[in-house]
């Protein structure tokens, strides 16, 4: 059974798995109003390859492309990234509490074992 939400988070992480795409996102976070050619400028790969990366990012909703006249500008769209960050933070909190309790339990068991000369 296909679950839309599951696949979406999967695809966000997959999109973020490429270093060129991460570099594109990092640049969009620093500068506003960049066009597609502005973005392509620093990379050694050619424009069509950059556009393919932008397609992947747009498809998972990490960027928005807007056409103004003959220029296409690119903007960061933070919501999918926020979902990914939220997932990580939730599970970090989940496990931190439990590991605290595991530590206390195991250390108590260790003291008991030592008291019994084990």
């Amino acid at each position, binding site marked *: 059974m296909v*679950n839309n*939400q*599951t696949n*979406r*988070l*999967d695809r966000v*992480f*997959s999109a*973020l*798995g*490429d*270093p060129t795409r*991460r*570099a594109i*996102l*990092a640049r969009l*976070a620093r500068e506003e109003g960049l066009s597609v050619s502005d973005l392509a400028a620093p990379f050694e790969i050619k424009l069509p390859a950059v556009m393919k990366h932008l397609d992947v990012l747009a498809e998972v909703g990490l960027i928005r492309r807007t056409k103004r006249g003959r220029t296409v500008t690119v903007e960061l769209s*933070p919501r999918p*990234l*926020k*979902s*990914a*960050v*939220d*997932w*990580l*933070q*939730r*599970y*970090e909190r989940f*496990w*931190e*509490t*439990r*590991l605290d*309790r*595991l*530590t*206390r*339990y*195991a*250390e108590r*068991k*260790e003291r008991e*074992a030592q008291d019994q000369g084990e």
Partner: protein
Amino acid sequence: MNQVTLVRRIGARPSIVFEALTTSEGISSWFGPDDGAVLSAALDVRVGGSYRIRFRRTDGTEHECTGQFLEIEAPRRIVMSWQWACGSPPEEEGDEHVSRLEYHLRPIDTGTELTLIHAGLRTEASARSHTSGWGGALDKLMRMFAH
């Protein structure tokens, strides 16, 4: 970075920590937000064996997680699949799928260094992204969106 990695130094020998991770008595003692939170813990600790843990959260709701043991190397390593069982209300996006949980136990002078890795996704793509690393710029980006 599609995974949570936590490291703890525990003042107990690895066999004791391993037991705490793989026995019903152990799990019942710590696998909840507070005392008495674990309602049941059944574990068939062998490769291919399954586990099922039912616990109550501080808001009173009951949840059940389940999965299979994929790798076991006592007392050093346990790898298992993880998912929230049907009927257990998934809270938010990403809770419905199967993830991967690993425990690594390393003996140290003072006891055990325990590393927990909870990887959110089990697709090949996520495995690649995990090994290629994320770099400082993206970490900063993600911290921006955390607020």
